[in-house]
């Protein structure tokens, strides 16, 4: 999955990025002036093109696709399992939203695709094996 970290330029703080699913992007606010963009449809260049059309020069784009492994978790027990590791309030996580959290000391970014899930857990690549070991026991 292509992933971009998007940080707004100085003075662009009030701008909010529209969710543009038609363009094959999921754009989630993840911090002050910071967004995370996911796309299964586009490669890095494609995402840059679409984002460039949307926001021009108002933000800096950082391609993080190679740095993160995404695990898609679904099923009725998804939140129960993730809550064994994460203090996140999953009810408060908006649909098509994402939040940074920590699971067993591993910084992860969890995004919610639809109201009933699935949840995508974006894990820093070097931690992937440890995270999967945790997940297997937690499940």
């Amino acid at each position: 999955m292509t992933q971009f970290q998007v940080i707004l330029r100085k003075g662009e703080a009030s701008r909010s990025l529209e969710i543009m699913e038609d363009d094959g992007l999921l754009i989630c606010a993840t911090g002050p002036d910071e967004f995370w963009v996911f796309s299964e449809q586009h490669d890095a260049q494609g995402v840059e093109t679409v984002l460039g059309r949307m926001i021009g020069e108002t933000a800096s784009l950082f391609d993080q696709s190679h740095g993160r492994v995404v695990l898609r978790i679904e099923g009725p027990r998804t939140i129960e399992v993730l809550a064994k590791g994460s203090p996140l309030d999953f009810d408060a996580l908006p649909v098509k939203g994402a939040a940074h959290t920590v699971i067993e000391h591993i910084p992860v970014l969890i995004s919610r695709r639809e109201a009933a899930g699935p949840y995508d857990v974006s894990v820093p690549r070097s931690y992937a094996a440890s995270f999967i070991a945790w997940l297997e026991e937690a499940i």
Partner: protein
Amino acid sequence: MSRQTNRLPEGGLVDRTQVISFTFDGRKFKAHPGDTLASALLANGIHLTGRSFKYHRPRGIYTAGAEEPNALVTLGNGGRTEPNTPATMVEVYDGLKARSQNRWPSLKFDLLSVNSLLKPFFPAGFYYKTFMWPRSFWYRLYEPMIRRAAGLGTLANESDPDRYETAHTQCDVLVVGAGPAGLMATREAARAGVNVLLVDEQPLPGGHLTGEADKVDGKSGAAWAAGMADELRAMENVCILSRTTVYGRYDGMTFGAVERVGDHLSPDSALPRQRGWTIQTRQLINAAGAIERPLVFAGNDRPGVMLAGAARVYVNRYGVLPGRNVVVFTNNDDAYRTARDLSQAGANVTLVDSRAKEKVHSRGVLPASVEMHFEQYISKVKGRSHVGRVTLAPSGTEIACDLVCVSGGWTPSLHLLSHVGHRPEWDEASTSFVMKEPGDEARAAGGAAATFDLNETLREGSKAGKAAAEACGHGIPGKTNLPKADDLPAYHIEPLWRVPSAMSRADGSFVDLQNDVTVADLELATREGFGHAEHAKRYTTLGMATDQGKLANVNALGILSQLQGRPISETGTTTFRPLTAPAAFGAIAGQARGSAFRPIRRSAMHLWHENHGAVFTQAGLWLRPYFYPREDEDFAAAVKREVLAVRSSIGMVDVSTLGKIELKGPDAGNFLDRLYINAFSKMKVHRARYGVMLREDGMVFDDGTVSRLGESHYFITVTTANASAVMQHMEFCHQVHWPHLDVQFCTVSETWAAMAVAGPKARDVLARAVNGLHLENHAFPFMAVGEGTIGGAPVRVFRISFSGELAYEVYTPAGYGADVWEAIMAAGESDGITAYGTEAMTVMRTEKGHVAGPELDGRTTAADLGLGGMMSVRKNFIGRWMASRSGLEGQDRLQLVGLKPVRSDETFRMGAHLVKDIGVTGVDVSHGHISTSVYSPTCDHFIGLAMLRNGRERHGETLQVVSPLHDESVSVEVVGPVFSDPDGEKMRG
């Protein structure tokens, strides 16, 4: 296996259709599902369950709840051994095995009970006063001996084979306690639409209602509570956790709790044993109820003495009659219900009340058969391993009995209201501490608020639920239907902290059963000046151990106030701290144990390293190849081979663990100028430069390289150890110091795999592997930066050298890391390319005199390290002014030098000190220390980097290296820090 002698023919909430068996001290007994170990033992006529902490006195089951001080047992065997478990909280399952504690050779005949006879000689503080000389004996002999004799259960040495987990949850309102107040509070808050989490330590809802005979809405209390719980479970915004103890409240309305998930099941169950919860809430309703207080009189610790409330729980909830000839001794109205219930269950009951007859409200509830004595006290108890007879005072009447039920009133459970600093206040009417000002986020209802009337409790619970919901911004629609409980006479109490001293011996009157603290101990503490509540606790150990004074504290405070002749409100109370109840470490650690204690980070090339025999070392969370031994090679041989390969031909090392940060924006260069001691804003695009950052105080913080990839695009590397610290520092500087700078940056450490290709053949080999990039020296000189592809994968190539050789760092998106690594390996095969680990890297950077972690130890300035010339004087940067303090510039600073042994076969170690004369000792003889020492294959002898006082002026001097810990001393010569290629011809060529 014998009959359950004390099981009533009917009644209780146990499942009489099933009979299960368990063992206690090896003897087999019968029980029913729904029993606790305590109720099952009592059903079998067993009261004696343990020996006391200090005097080894026989002790029996005293309560029916978590506050049990006496009946602490050890469950399980081997790694599953669980000592100090209250028998009152253990749900019996078929095959349960429990053992008594603190006795030898057996519970009935315990040799150390001789301590009990010597009790007059063992007052509080005895050990510390007696075993003082010789001083050295304390640790070696006295303390181990005393510890063996005292204490509770013994821990297992094996690791615990059970599984534990942690969990997090959030709610608007946390209700602690599923008794009448808690159930009502939950219902009302939930009706208002907030999310409610109801937590209760028992398997059944209802709290004390499960142990009462009185009715609510015409149903038994247990049936009413079960109906309420069903109604609540059907609500979407209610979650109920049973068998869960909230053990602590922490800042920001965070609570810790332990759920006993599988404890009531056989250990073979697939469920985790316990689950440690972290609960985040907005509002707390403390409906944790109240705990009954003991009465203090001589012999009040004998097996067969029990709290009055507990006795009726055994009758009503478990269908067990704990005694047939019962004396109920009380100072309040509540115990009359015990007298009533036990009498109705068939016991002969005598009631002894310390109050005058006319003060008592509840005489009417008693059947005519109950004999009553007013203004009388129990002064003496006969029967060593079980009560047989009590003597009343002042009348002198003797009553034969096998059960003494005592009630000194009720103490509200305030722990969760007090943990974050609120102080309870003394309330004369209820003779208890209450929380009058629990803060805006917490409230209490029912027993926890010193409300002992059931109808009032139901009303108060409902009110608390509404108030909590309102505090969350939710109003309540419609009217509340309050259930109606049987009316009982009003609760009245008259304080009785101890039976008057003239009637009952102080040294046999136990205040704290768990810690064997008597009235005599408190008298002694007061005499010796330790009468304040906090002092008396430490002096006597009262209120310590697993029950944390839940039973003893209020009586003790009452006695101390009497001894000092001032009101209890002035004696003060001790401080409530988490944990309120013991929690197993396993439940707090969850899955984070053994190899999962912390995560492991692996680079994109990790599998290659594994497949090629790498021995790994830990660098923070990272696993890095340390060296790659070939057949028969030891550490030294492998490292030597790796170094020589690089120096003579070519080698490659995985440097993916370096911290990497990418910066964009028009002010990126300006931002870096402010962070580093040297300047980058004027550096040309496609160039790299070594950079050093200082802390605010002028000491070196970190070093690495800064590369300019575009006009407003930079890429920096920082040391593995400081990767996140530097990122935090940069975020702080940007957000706080210079928010006006238009720069955006983020960590890309994970995104790029990195490898350093080093050695005389590096250019030839890399040229064979890379496309789209010319590597000739004129086209791609030292410190050049370029882009190309290797095997189709995009790469960034930096001509940077840590080893001092002709070298390139190759970065590629991590997904290509392994492919690019293998492609370079293949291209270098004909030149004998050698993978090298962190040790060879350390050896080579030491040979080259490059500083690293051991030199950047937080005490060194750039000037100390010979990098002072890099400090720009034309710009401001963090640390500039503090680094120019006179103390950091003087002649006596420790400065970086190189060392070599005078005799080339001698070695020295890191941390050793440099002295002029080994014969001179003192605090100021050290001239410095060795920061790094390695065997240098290039020089063929040991070399070192050291921090030496005024070192740069002392090249050529001979000094002694001493390590008194290892009894070593070696002569060394001070030299320049660069041993290999001092003019840099190799890396620039």
